[in-house]
């Protein structure tokens, strides 16, 4: 069954750009150009996710989101905004946004985040063990092993791997890692994430035949058995 996405965005070019991208990825996309249409569609249709621009005519994005949440809809919402400052972000998440992406953005980033939102909405069992192939992470004893061989991880490497394991087989971008693992919401102006990931990769892959932590050029990373 194809997944359904609602894009509420007043700029026609951006709207088309987002919609086409997701359609190519197999989604069914509905479009709205202002807040009123957006709210009408959002409350009447069954969507898997909503991409909502903050600055839209009719009813601004945050008011629309507030109304949507007040109506009891729990559809995951990603807010798009030109306002990237922390306080603005906090406002967005406070009224019920699930994620916040600052314009301009790369489509791959948007796509990865929407995928992550869907997974997050799926009820996450209180797992004690995360696994991928022969990689095993015990969240209680904080023990990590591959093919039965223990791996020695620093606390932050553990957190990084946990983040990746919870999103296994998904694309994870650098900014998602910065936000999710380091709580750092700014462009660090360096390839610092690459450094951290390559260190983790060294620990995960040295001495094993199969690569497990893949780099997707220009997009991010993917923890998976197949690239």
């Amino acid at each position, binding site marked *: 069954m194809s997944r359904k996405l609602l894009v509420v965005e007043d700029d026609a070019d951006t709207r088309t750009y987002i919609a086409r991208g997701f359609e190519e990825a197999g989604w069914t996309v509905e479009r709205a150009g202002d807040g009123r249409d957006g709210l009408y569609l959002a409350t009447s249709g069954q969507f898997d996710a909503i991409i909502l621009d903050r600055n839209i005519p009719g009813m601004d994005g945050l008011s629309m989101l507030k109304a949507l949440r007040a109506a009891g809809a729990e559809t995951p919402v990603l807010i798009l905004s030109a306002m990237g400052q922390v306080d603005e972000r906090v406002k967005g998440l406070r009224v019920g946004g699930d994620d916040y992406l600052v314009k301009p953005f790369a489509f791959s980033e948007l796509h990865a985040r929407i995928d992550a939102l869907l997974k997050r909405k799926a009820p996450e069992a209180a797992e004690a063990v995360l696994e991928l192939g022969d990689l095993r992470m015990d969240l209680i004893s904080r023990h990590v092993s591959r093919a039965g061989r223990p791996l020695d991880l620093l606390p932050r490497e553990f957190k990084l791997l946990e983040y990746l394991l919870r999103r296994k087989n998904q694309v994870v971008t650098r900014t998602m890692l910065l936000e999710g693992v380091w709580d*750092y919401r700014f462009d660090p102006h360096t390839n610092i994430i690459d450094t951290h990931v390559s260190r983790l990769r060294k620990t995960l892959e040295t001495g094993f035949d199969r690569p497990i932590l893949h780099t997707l050029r220009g997009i991010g990373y993917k923890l998976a058995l197949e690239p």
Partner: protein
Amino acid sequence: MNAAPPLARRRTGLIAAGAVALVIMLTGAGATALVDSRVEGLLVVETERTLETETGVLLDAHSGDGAQGLEAAVARLIRERRDPHAVYWLKSAAGDRVISSISDPPALVIGSIRSRRFIVWRDGLGRSVRALATPLPSGGLLLVGKDEAARSELHRALLEAFIATLAAVGLTALGLGLTLEKILRRRVDTIAQTANAIIDGDLSQRVPLRGSGDEFDRLASVLNAMLVRISIQIATMRAVTDSLAHDLRLPLTRIRLGLEAALAAPDDGGRTAALERAADQTDDALRTFTTLIDIARADAGVGRDAFGWTESSTIIRDVAELFGPLAEDTGSRLDVEAVEARIWAQGALLRQVLGNLIHNAIKYAGEAGPILLASRITDGELVITVSDRGPGIAPEERERALRPFGRLERDGAIDGSGLGLALASACVRLHGGRLFLGDNEPGLKVYLFLPLSDGLPDQLPGTG
């Protein structure tokens, strides 16, 4: 000094002076009226006592020498006229002879007197006369009295004194009011002159202080502090707008050229590479733009509503963990010495500031030795320092280095927007703190002074 303003503009002072004078005059009039009535009462009592004494003396003469003795005594008194206001009137028992210093009192007044009592009437000249009327045992009537001209004189004297006092008081009040108005005007004029100079575009003007610490000095120092703050903001704005032309137009030009090159390039690896370069340059331009907005917002005090209680050592360790590997990659090391201290802050912004500073240290001085990120508490403030072992910044260049696009000449070869320190400085100001650059001997030591939570008023979370 300015010429005195026209009268219309001085109205406030005049009205104040006039009002004060009027109030004083009314109070004076009331006081005078009160004195007048009290004095009159006393005067009547005094007069009556005198009349009684005098009557007693005359009656003694009467009882000794009979009616004739009394007549002689009264006649002598009238003749001698020692007191010009004294009044005597004596009627014999038979009613046929009258010895008098005045015209006869009205019959209505004296006709009904059966016993000794005081009477008041108006004589032929219109003067009010008060007299003690005594029926004589022989059947006659003696009046010993005083006309009340004395009282009118007293009234007049009081009125004159009152008017004189009133005039003096009124003039004094008016003079005081005008002087006060002049003093106030002079002080206000000083402030107004500064304001006018600023309106004319000279923002370097400050209100002069007299050093007296009075209300005007306090007002002046607050105004001056405000002007300093505005100057900083305007300087930032100016630097930003000046630099926008260069620092944003340049990358945009590069992008444009790159895209043109890509259009012209054959559709193979060359085009892709040119497009990738253009995309990178777009990111650079966007980054600069974002940072400029961040600085402007921090300087304008926007974003305080996202403040919260934050453990500074957690932030310091998080940032160190993020950037540690980068330092190691350049052959350096990032050491951390953090004390626990809660601060009222926007944690995310502080992470960015520290991240920027550490990144700078790694970039400019990473190969020169270890970098130290430390925090300690000094004089009720949290002091975070980022120290490196690199070339440092010469004291005379430090102020410029904190300004947007204030990059040092020698860094031309190193990538960077020239905004990192300016952003750090603006963010620290947003947190009510201050940032300055010091010498690590050798190297650069950046100090961030932040107010500690303990020192903050309780209501702070509600402000902003």
